[in-house]
């Protein structure tokens, strides 16, 4: 499943790009995962309010 590296220059993102969708799955995870943390923090705040 891991493809050969075809780009000219090696780089962090280039290496992540070797499998199908690996790079975008990685970036999406980085963006979305912390939203869970925000969710639980806000939940706690709302519960303790009033």
């Amino acid at each position: 499943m891991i493809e050969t590296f075809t780009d000219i220059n090696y780089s962090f993102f280039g290496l992540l790009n070797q499998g199908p969708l690996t790079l975008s799955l990685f970036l999406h995870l980085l963006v979305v995962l912390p939203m869970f943390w925000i969710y639980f923090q806000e939940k706690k705040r709302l519960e303790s309010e009033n």
Partner: protein
Amino acid sequence: MSRKKVSVWSDNRFWQRSATWVTGFASLLLIWLTFDTMGQISMGNQKDIDNHVVKRVPSATVINYKVEYNMNNHRGHEVPVIGGDDGKGNSLFKVKEKFFGRDDYSQKEADALLHLGKLASQAKNCMDCHTLLGNGAYYAPDLTKAWLDPAWGKNGPMQAMTGKSTKEEAMAEFLQHPGKYPTHARMMPNLGITPKEAVGLVAFLKHMATIDTNGFPRGFGKIKEGVVYAKTK
């Protein structure tokens, strides 16, 4: 503390914070990616050519070399090949080619030519009719690989029309007096391009053809029927 039912999903603050996070983080990622890309698309110099280092945007001194656009087995698409092909689509950086009678432009001279050409391309608004690297207007042909276009080559009609014996002279001549060489009803306007600027522009075009565009445009000049000279039709 008693747990009560709360709705985080309908909470304004939750979405405000999420929006801030997503925006900020996506921007940071973009900046990171930009630094990475900047390093990869910075322009090379003659030393890179001497050391056979492949650059996405090679040195301006590529005007001293023969340039092709061939299938590269490793990259999986066509790439610019500079100074001869090793048979697998890799540049040999050896074979020279005269550019306006010379093949020994120094780094400084080549840089100055490219600078003049790039300036001219902006001063004359090339992008508002042509596309460069596929961006611009769609009124006139794409110039990304114009240097390699068979129409300008040895037996091409464009070169024959201008009565010049080399590609670069033909291009320079055409650029200076496009009104004199009508090829189609749609003609290039006379933009007051001076002989010097024309040389710069041709250097700019030759250099642009050596930029590694990840295989765009596909099959450029490689498809036999792609060269259907208007006259023979």
